[in-house]
C-alpha cells in the first residue's frame, strides 16, 4: 500500500495481569482468548454428550428426565456448532492469519476485541437459559418451527437462545470483515495471493462464506423472535405462515456453515502434512481452486437436509451434493500426493492429521450415500446421519483442531508439548472415536431415530449403544490425556525455539511467542514457503554452486 500503519502504544503505562487481557487489542492475545474460550465450550458440550451416552447405554434408562435430555442434546449441538468448531477456526485465524501474511496486527484491532467480547457474552446468554425456570432451549440445534414457537417452547430459555446466537452471528460477521480486510490489504511485500499459505487461503474463502451465510441465519432467528415475542405469524401455518420457509433460511445458512466448520481445518491439515512429509504441497493451485469450487457448490446444496419434506426439488439438490464431493475428494489426493515420495515424520500433529484422513474419508463417503434421496428416505433423522456428521465434524474438524493445537502450541507458548504423551492421546482418541461412531452407523441402518431420550429393548439397538458408550469413555480419556499434556508442558517448560518443526509459513520466521507486533524483520518472500526459504537459503546457494562446479 502507499501508506503505512505505524505502531504506537508505548507511551502509556501498560496494563498487566487480568486487566491486560480484558483491555487487549493484540490479535495474538485475542486469538488465545478465542482458543481457550471455545475449547472450554467444547469440554462443556462434551460433558453433555457424556450424560446423553450414559442415558442411552441401556434401553429404558432413566438417568435424566426427557425434558433434561432434550435440553442437553439441543445445547450439545448448539455449543459444538455455534460456540466451538466455527469460532475455534476464527480464533486460530485471529492468531495465525496476520502472522502468515506478514502483518503487524489485524486491520481493525479494537473491532477485533469487540467481536471477541460479543462472542463470549452471546455464548453465555445462550447458556444462561439453564438458569431460567423453564430450563434451556429444547427444540434441537435446528429449532425447526413450529416446535420453536411460543406455544410449544414457552420458556425464556428459547428466547435467550435466539438473542444469544444473534449476538454471536453478528460477532462472526464483524470478524469476517476484519480478517478479510487484513488478508487482502495488509500482506507483506512480495506476498502475492498465490503464495499465501493454504490455511490463509481457506480462511479467506471461509470468511467470504460467513458474509454470505450468516445474514440468512440472522434473518431466520429475527423472524422467529418476531413470531415469539412481537405477535408475528411468519412461520405459523395456522395463520398462513410457512414452516418450510424457516427450513430454507436455516439451511441456506446451515450448509455453508458445514463448510465454514470444515474448510479452515482442511487448511490446518494442509499446513501440517507438507511440513512433516518434508515436501511442498502437491498441487497448490488445484487445491485452491477446489476450495473455491466447494464454496460455490456449498451455496447450492442446502435443501439436501430437506429431502424428506416433499417440498423441495430433490434431483437438483441431489446432483449438486454429488458434485461437491468431487472437489472434496481432490483434496485427499493433494494430501496423499504430498506424502508420496516424501520423508514422513510421525510427530503428534502429523498423527492427528492421519487420523483425520481416515475419519473424514468415512464421513465423506457416507455423505455421498445420504445425498441420494431414495437412500436418504431411510437415513434422514436416524443415527446414520448422526454418525455421518460426527465423522465430518468430530473425526474431521475436531481432530484437525487437536492437530492445530499440537502444531502451533510451541509457537503460541514458546514451549514444546510432550511427544510421547501426545501419541498416547492420538491413539486413545482415534480408537475411542471409531468405537463411538461406527456402532451409530449400524444403529441408523437399524432405524434408530436421533434425538430420542430413550428406546425400547428388542429392536437390535442395545448392543451398539453399549459399545458407543464404551467408546465415549475411551475418547474422553484421550482428551483428558491431551489436556494433562498441555498443563504439564506449560508448568515444566521445554523451550521450543523459533522453528521446532522446520515450518514453511511466515509465523515460523519470527520468535516463539512472536513479539508485540509480530516481526522484528520480515524475510524476502519468493514462494509459498518463505520461512523455509529463509532457513535454507544459505544451504541452497552452496548446493547450487556445488552443482555448477560439477558441470
Amino acid at each position: 500500500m502507499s501508506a503505512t500503519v505505524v505502531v504506537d502504544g508505548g507511551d502509556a503505562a501498560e496494563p498487566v495481569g487480568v486487566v491486560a487481557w480484558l483491555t487487549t487489542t493484540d490479535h495474538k492475545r485475542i486469538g488465545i482468548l478465542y482458543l481457550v474460550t471455545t475449547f472450554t465450550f467444547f469440554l462443556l458440550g462434551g460433558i453433555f454428550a457424556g450424560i446423553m451416552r450414559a442415558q442411552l447405554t441401556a434401553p429404558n434408562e432413566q438417568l435424566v428426565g426427557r425434558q433434561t435430555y432434550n435440553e442437553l442434546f439441543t445445547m450439545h449441538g448448539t455449543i459444538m456448532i455455534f460456540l466451538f468448531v466455527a469460532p475455534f477456526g476464527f480464533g486460530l485465524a485471529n492468531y495465525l492469519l496476520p502472522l502468515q501474511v506478514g502483518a503487524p496486527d489485524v486491520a481493525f484491532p479494537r473491532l477485533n476485541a469487540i467481536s471477541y467480547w460479543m462472542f463470549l457474552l452471546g455464548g453465555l446468554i445462550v447458556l444462561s437459559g439453564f438458569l431460567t425456570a423453564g430450563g434451556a432451549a429444547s427444540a434441537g440445534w435446528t429449532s425447526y418451527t413450529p416446535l420453536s414457537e411460543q406455544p410449544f417452547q414457552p420458556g425464556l430459555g428459547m428466547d435467550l437462545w435466539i438473542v444469544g446466537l444473534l449476538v454471536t452471528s453478528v460477532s462472526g460477521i464483524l470478524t469476517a470483515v476484519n480478517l478479510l480486510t487484513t488478508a487482502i490489504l495488509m500482506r507483506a511485500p512480495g506476498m502475492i495471493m498465490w503464495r499465501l499459505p493454504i490455511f490463509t487461503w481457506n480462511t479467506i474463502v471461509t470468511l467470504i462464506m460467513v458474509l454470505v451465510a450468516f445474514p440468512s441465519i440472522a434473518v431466520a432467528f429475527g423472524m422467529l423472535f418476531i413470531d415469539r415475542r412481537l405477535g408475528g405469524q411468519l412461520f405459523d401455518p395456522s395463520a398462513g405462515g410457512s414452516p418450510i420457509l424457516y427450513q430454507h433460511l436455516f439451511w441456506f445458512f446451515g450448509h455453508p456453515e458445514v463448510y465454514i466448520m470444515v474448510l479452515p481445518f482442511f487448511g490446518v491439515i494442509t499446513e501440517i502434512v507438507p511440513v512433516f512429509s518434508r515436501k511442498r504441497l502437491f498441487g497448490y493451485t488445484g487445491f485452491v481452486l477446489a476450495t473455491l469450487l466447494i464454496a460455490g457448490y456449498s451455496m447450492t446444496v442446502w435443501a439436501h437436509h430437506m429431502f424428506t419434506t416433499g417440498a423441495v426439488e430433490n434431483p437438483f439438490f441431489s446432483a449438486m451434493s454429488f458434485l461437491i464431493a468431487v472437489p472434496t475428494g481432490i483434496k485427499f489426493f493433494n494430501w496423499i500426493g504430498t506424502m508420496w515420495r516424501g520423508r514422513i515424520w510421525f510427530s503428534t500433529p502429523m498423527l492427528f492429521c492421519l487420523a483425520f484422513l481416515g475419519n473424514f474419508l468415512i464421513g465423506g463417503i457416507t455423505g455421498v450415500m445420504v445425498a441420494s434421496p431414495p437412500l436418504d428416505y431411510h437415513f434422514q433423522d436416524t443415527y446414520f446421519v448422526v454418525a455421518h456428521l460426527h465423522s465430518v465434524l468430530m473425526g474431521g474438524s475436531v481432530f484437525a483442531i487437536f492437530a492445530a493445537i499440537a502444531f502451533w502450541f510451541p509457537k503460541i507458548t514458546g514451549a514444546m508439548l510432550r511427544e510421547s504423551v501426545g501419541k498416547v492421546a492420538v491413539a486413545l482418541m482415534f480408537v475411542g472415536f471409531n468405537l463411538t461412531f461406527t456402532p451409530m452407523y449400524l444403529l441408523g441402518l437399524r432405524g434408530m431415530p436421533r434425538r430420542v431420550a430413550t428406546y425400547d429393548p428388542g429392536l437390535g439397538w442395545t448392543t451398539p449403544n453399549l459399545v458407543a458408550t464404551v467408546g465415549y469413555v475411551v475418547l474422553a480419556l484421550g482428551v483428558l490425556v491431551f489436556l494433562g499434556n498441555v498443563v504439564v508442558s506449560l508448568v515444566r517448560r521445554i523451550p521450543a525455539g523459533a522453528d521446532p518443526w522446520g515450518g514453511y509459513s511466515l509465523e515460523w520466521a519470527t520468535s516463539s511467542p512472536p513479539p508485540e507486533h509480530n516481526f522484528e524483520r520480515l524475510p524476502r518472500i519468493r514462494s509459498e514457503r518463505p520461512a523455509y526459504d529463509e532457513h535454507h537459503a544459505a544451504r541452497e546457494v552452496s548446493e547450487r554452486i556445488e552443482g555448477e562446479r560439477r558441470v
Partner: protein
Amino acid sequence: MRTIGRVLLASGTFILVSAAIYWFVSHEWAGTILLVGTGTATLIVAAYSWLKVGSSTVFAEDRGDADPGDGEGEAIASFTMDSPWPLAFGIGVAVLAGGLVFGPPLLVVGAVVIVVAIVGMMRESIA
C-alpha cells in the same frame, strides 16, 4: 486486489447461473431469491475491487519481486495497544440483547453503554 476480484467475479457468476438453473427446475421462490441476492451482492463487491482499486495501482504485496520495505509511505493511522472500550461495547450489546428478552429498561441501559463505548473509542482515536 486483482486476484480477489477474480475470485468474487467467478463466485457471483457461479451463484447467479445456479439461481437461473434452480428457478427453471423448481419454480421455488425462497431459494431463488436467496441465490439471486447472494450472487448480486457478491458481484457488487467484485465490481468495486475491479473498478475502484484493481485497475489503477499495483501494491507491493501484489508484486512477486517486491522486497521487505517496498511500498512504505506516510503514516495514516496508529494502532492503539489497549482499550477498555471494546469490552464495554460488548457488555452493552449483551445488555441490549437481554433487554429484548427481559424488557425495555435493559434496552435503555444497553443503548447508553454502547453510546458511551463508542464515544470512548472516538476520543481514543482523536488523542
